[in-house]
Each structure stands twice: as structure tokens, then as C-alpha cells.
């Protein structure tokens, strides 16, 4: 196998975010999260439950694009009303995007600027408040910059660890921000006060590059590991089964 691309490294890092989840609904928002979650399901997390993007739940794993796809095997039905039930039951791990994210993992996908007359209206709250208070959440940031990783988000849609702590142990007992995966590295909150920590750098990325592109001070361990490279088996699955048209590479800057 020829060497892994940055997008393939990201796909594996995303898959790793779902390791240990077992039998839960995963909702990967975005192309590489779709690819990464499928990779996890085909390798170390076979019990993950996934929709086709709409209401049908698919038992098999289909490629993310292309015409000659195998027939879907439908194992269930999850219209939006049941999605909310599933969210509130906690048996779910969502990976959302973040237009802004801060050091405690507060996320903003609603708008940029003054709320009454925003500079940029974005998607809105969507399900972020309910997701983050009810079940495990991770984030995918394809373009790591100090405009995304900011000291303070303009609107808190998904709640971070400081907001969760302020609610107290009862209300925050289901809150977990598992992982933030960007095109430069992997981040977690494994620090005393749950500030964001650099967990690994993708191959070819320098520590300086991450620090320069992050608008707040990251916790940085004495030794920063490299994000693990995809195995040959994983590369084969990515290239031949999950993403044969390599659309994942279109989402990420190298």
C-alpha cells in the first residue's frame, strides 16, 4: 500500500473516537466522519448502529459515494421523532462540526457576531444543546485555524466542560466531549479541569503549526505522540470499500 494521505489519517483518528462505544447509534456529520464511522464499524466496533443519512437504519456498510453500490440492508427505522428519543435515552455518540470551539469544548454553529444582527447566520442551534447534555459528543474540524479554535465562542450551542461543571454533578452526569479531530491533530479534555489537550499530532504536522493556529493555550504533554498511521487493512477498506472515489480528501486541507 502506498502511504496514507492526510484525509486517511483523519478517517482513522475519527474511527478511533468511536472505539469502545459498542451498541449505540453513531451520527457522523460530514464526509470524513461518515467515512471514519464506517471504518470503525467494519473493524473494531461492529455493533455500531447507523442510518443511511435519512430514516432507514442500515445493517451493512455502503460506500459514501458512487453509483455501483451494494443494495442496502435495512434493519430499522429512525425518523426524526425517534432520533430525539434516542438522543434523550443516551444511546448515541454524535460527531458534529464546529464553526467555533473553545478550550472547554463549547461549540458554536448558530451565528457569528452580535446575536441580534449577526455578521453571519449559520445553521442554528440544531440538536447541539440536547446532544451535549444527553450523550457523548465529538467534533470534526477540517480546517484547523484560530478562527475556529477561539478563546470564546459567540454563541454556545453545544456545551463544554465549564458550562457542564456549572450545572453541577446531577445535570451534567451524561455530558462527555470525547474527542476533537482536526486536519492537524487529535485533541481531548484529559486534564484536571477539562481544558483541551493536544492528544496527538498527525504525521508531518509540527507542534508550532498547531499552536499558531489555535486561538487559546492548549494543554501540551511533555511528549506528544503521533496520530497512529492507518494499517494496510484499513487503507484497503478505505480505498476499496468505503471511499473508492476518495471524496474524503476533498474535505480536508493537507
Amino acid at each position, binding site marked *: 500500500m502506498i502511504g496514507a494521505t492526510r484525509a486517511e489519517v483523519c478517517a482513522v483518528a475519527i474511527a478511533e473516537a468511536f472505539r469502545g462505544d459498542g451498541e449505540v447509534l453513531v451520527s457522523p456529520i460530514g464526509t470524513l466522519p461518515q467515512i471514519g464511522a464506517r471504518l470503525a464499524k467494519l473493524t473494531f466496533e461492529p455493533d455500531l448502529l447507523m442510518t443511511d443519512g435519512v430514516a432507514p437504519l442500515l445493517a451493512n456498510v455502503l460506500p459514501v459515494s458512487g453509483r455501483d453500490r451494494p443494495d442496502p440492508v435495512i434493519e430499522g427505522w429512525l425518523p426524526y421523532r425517534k432520533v430525539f428519543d434516542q*438522543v434523550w435515552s443516551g444511546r448515541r455518540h454524535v460527531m458534529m462540526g464546529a464553526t467555533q470551539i473553545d478550550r472547554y469544548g463549547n461549540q458554536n454553529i448558530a451565528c457569528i457576531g452580535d446575536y441580534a444582527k449577526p455578521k453571519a447566520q449559520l445553521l442554528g*442551534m440544531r440538536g447541539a444543546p440536547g446532544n451535549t447534555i444527553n450523550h457523548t459528543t465529538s467534533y470534526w474540524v477540517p480546517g484547523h485555524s484560530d478562527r475556529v479554535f477561539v478563546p470564546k465562542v459567540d454563541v454556545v450551542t453545544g*456545551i463544554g466542560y465549564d458550562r457542564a461543571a456549572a450545572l453541577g454533578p446531577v445535570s451534567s452526569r451524561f455530558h462527555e466531549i470525547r474527542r476533537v479531530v482536526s486536519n492537524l491533530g487529535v485533541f481531548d479534555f484529559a486534564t484536571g479541569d477539562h481544558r483541551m489537550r493536544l492528544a496527538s499530532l498527525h504525521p508531518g504536522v509540527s507542534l508550532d503549526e498547531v499552536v499558531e493556529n489555535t486561538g487559546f493555550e492548549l494543554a501540551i504533554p511533555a511528549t506528544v505522540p503521533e496520530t497512529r498511521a492507518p494499517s494496510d487493512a484499513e487503507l484497503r477498506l478505505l480505498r476499496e470499500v468505503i471511499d473508492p472515489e476518495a471524496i474524503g480528501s476533498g474535505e480536508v486541507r493537507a
Partner: protein
Amino acid sequence: MDKRTSLASAVAELRDGMTIGIGGWGSRRKPMAVVREILRTDLRDLTIVSYGGPDLGLLCAAGKVKRACFGFVSLDSIPLEPHFRAARQNGTIETFELDEGMFQWGLYAAATRLPFLPTRAGLGSDVLKLNPQLRTVRSPYADDEELVAMPALALDVAFVHMNRADASGNGQYLGPDPYFDDLFCMAAKRRFVSCEKLVRTEDFLKEGTLHTLLLNRTMVDGVIETPRGAHFTECPPDYGRDEAFQREYAASAKDPSAWQAFFGRYLALEDEAAYQRAVAAR
């Protein structure tokens, strides 16, 4: 009871300042013929409650909206609704922005005549900060947990679009998702269903299974047959989204002259039939 009516008669019931619920989701199975009919009136200051798509975008662009209640506004294949964005960024509309699940809970509270329903969703987020009228409530049981008291989203009028309906107001969806159309109807004082095709009651089960019969006739006051009435949103299995038209719609948000041209060509026409002819002729 024969509840068949027309777009014009249904929309004639609306008044300035009313709270209107619109079914569907994003750019999916929206009662667009009704929205277009509202654009033909001089109604204003409406509060629109919607899992928002081009329904909300069109009403904003036409200056009909005072306040939007939403969890998101999207065209699906075009993630951000450009006309809604313009209204927000110009500061011309008020908002009641909610988590998507809180929104459902608000409809359900209204549907079941409860003042509120408790939920964990919203705690700690800016939903509560941006909507200071929202309150929390404490569990009266031993857990004493604090929860958001999501208030009922009571509607004056609801509009939903079904694949099939009968003259009595029974409604059938044939696509993958019912969305929340039953709750919209149950949350409203007056309820109108537009449909692709009016069928005889005895023919429902030739169209789909028992489980596709979403609306029963106690939930509906008026039925309007509007073939392609969800255009340009999707209405499977009858038709998919008209992506080319949706792109044309989105491009019309570029500047006021583009909007005027789009409005003149498709919307400033005498009725829905004229709209459908203009779409077919392009």
C-alpha cells in the same frame, strides 16, 4: 364531513400577527403552495414556527415575518438558507431559537394541552440566555433534578403537506419520515392539509400500509388538493427535490434585483396553477 377547500379560502382565514406552524423539515415535504398563496396577500407580522426551510426563507424575503421560531433553517443540499440568512443579518426579524428536540417538546405540550414539558435539552446552552422567558423546573420527586420547562408552542393555524388525503381530512404520508406534521396539527386551533392527490377513503390502503395514515380527521379542518404543491422541496415517492430550481431560488438572495426578478417570474402570478406553468415552462 366534506372538508375540501381552496388555497385562497384557507389563507383568507389568516390575520396579521398570527402564529403559523408549517410542517415538513428543511427542504422536505413543505406545504409550499400555501406559502406561495400567503405571498399573494398583504399579510404581515407573522410568527412562523417551523423546522425551517424555504418556507421560512420565502416568507422572510417577502417581508411577512415578524418572528421566527426555529431550531435550524436549511435547504439540505444547500446547507444555509440564504434568504433567512439575509433577514437575520439585516436584523429584520425577531427570533425564538430552540434546540430541535425542545421544539418537538413544545409542539407536544401544545398538542396535549400542557403548559410545558420538562427536558434536559437546553441546560447550560445559550438557548436559555437568548430566550430569557424560558424557565426551569425542579422535579417534585426525591431526585430534585432541575430541568428546562419547555413551554407549549401554541399555534393559531397549522399547514402541512401530505402525499394523500381524503375529503374528510384523513392524511397519509408515503415518504421515509412523518416529521412532526401530526403534532403541528394537534398544536393548532385551525388545521389545513394540502395533498398531492385526493383519494377515496377506501383507496388509502392501496397507496400505502396502515402505518402511513398519520393524520386522522379530528386533527384537520380543511383539505386542499395541490399537485406538486411541495415543489421545489422533495415529496417522495411522488417527486424528489427540484435541485435546479432550488439553486435558482438560492441565487435570488444575491441582491434585491435578483429577488425582484425571481419574484416577478414565479411568485407575482395570479395563482398556484400559474406558478406551476411558469416552473414547467422554464
